[in-house]
């Protein structure tokens, strides 16, 4: 039954040339999209909570649109539209980065919004009572606490993001999965290659979720 599997065929020396480039891209995409997503997501969340209709409505519309479209479709859209907007093709990898930042910003903004709203109203009022401006209040009182509360959710979202990076398959970018796929094709062992990719994704995500649990316990003790 299992006779058809031949994992001995794979050695690091054979795999590395195919996989390393994709591996680095997957990690890089995850980090850049997380950082960019949190920055733009925070801006979106602040816009949405600002109470100014002119900022609120576009932000809400953006977030809701992004959240109602499958990531694969968003990837295809940006892959098509970015060259239009910029006037020159930028390649699948670059367009994947832009898409992920834009897409994840919508999800991170909802996390930030929930985090900000979880801060007791009294703290906000206390800030104002001390004579702080809106900006000072956000920067010194609300956001530091909100971000600490949100840390576990941020990390969970990053794990999901890392898993989602495999979807750049749709526009043909060269990520970790693509690396394994190419290796499998070139070495004549596609099944084993997919299996190895799955095992690698599994252990990386499992390790990350253990980190999340540890962080969660830390944060809980502090509060």
């Amino acid at each position, binding site marked *: 039954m299992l006779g058809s599997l031949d994992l001995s065929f794979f050695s690091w020396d054979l795999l590395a040339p195919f996989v390393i480039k994709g591996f680095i891209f997957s990690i890089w995409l995850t980090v850049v999209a997380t950082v960019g997503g949190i920055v733009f997501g925070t801006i979106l969340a602040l816009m949405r909570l600002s109470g100014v209709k002119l900022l609120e409505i576009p932000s809400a519309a953006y977030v809701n649109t992004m959240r109602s*479209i*499958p990531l694969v*479709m968003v990837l*295809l859209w940006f892959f098509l539209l970015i060259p239009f907007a910029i006037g020159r093709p930028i390649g699948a990898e670059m367009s994947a980065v832009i898409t992920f930042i834009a897409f994840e910003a919508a999800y991170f903004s909802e996390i930030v919004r929930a985090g900000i709203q979880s801060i007791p109203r009294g703290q906000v009022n206390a800030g104002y009572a001390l004579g702080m401006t809106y900006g000072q209040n956000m920067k010194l009182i609300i956001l530091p606490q909100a971000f600490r509360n949100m840390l576990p959710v941020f990390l969970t979202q990053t794990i999901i993001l890392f898993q989602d990076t495999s979807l750049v398959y749709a526009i043909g970018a060269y990520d970790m999965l693509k690396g394994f796929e190419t290796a499998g094709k070139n070495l004549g062992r596609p099944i084993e290659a*997919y299996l190895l990719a799955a095992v690698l994704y599994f252990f990386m995500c499992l390790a990350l*979720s253990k980190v999340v649990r540890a962080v969660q316990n830390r944060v809980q003790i502090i509060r």
Partner: protein
Amino acid sequence: MAWNWQVFCRETTSGETVVGCFGRGGDETYLNWIVTAWGWTLFVALCALVVALVSGLIIGTIRTLPNSPWLVRLGNAWVELFRNIPLLVQIFLWYFVIPGIFPAMKGVPSVVLVIMALGLFTSARVAEQVRAGIQSLPRGQRYAGMALGLTTGQTYRFVLLPMALRIVIPPLTSESMNIVKNSSVAFAVSIAELTFFARQSGEETSAPVEMYLAATVLYAISAFAINRVMGVIEKRTRVPGFVAAGGMGGH
């Protein structure tokens, strides 16, 4: 940019515009194709939803059982396994690896394999929510069941699950909407659903914006329809006196 909605009336093989937009006599237009593709999206999503709900409910319940540490461990392992591998990779596992290892699976239609992949992937999330729902019930409910002399099975059937399942409907609604969106990944193994349609027809017609737009709108409509259906279910099954999910007011 000028819109060219006429493109949907073109035949997929000859590229000629057909009067009435729906192809007749064996030849299909892009409008025919997108309707079929939407059907595949809904079919894959709904079948996977059934798989996800059934297996997620079982696994989630198993994870809360008292005095069965091995079943709990099995449930936890299930969740970790299906949660920590990307959906696309899981689809490849079902599509390439499993038929490669078990030759008996070679005859299974690929859409079934995709449904299993998407369904079990989502089952981990459903299981997590069902577990959380059961554990969020006041401890007294389980004790009440035991005090009445119910067996564990009866306690679950008559006391815990009817309460817990109603509580988890809101998170299950988002999972159900996610499953429609996630079904888009089936394009990777050539299931002719909306994303597959959008990619193919976008290339064939050189009118990708119209094609993507139509597919995107259909995704949004599908997810919204599921949202409304779940909303009705939520309303119908609401427990009197129990306000909303999370707000545990049961005394």
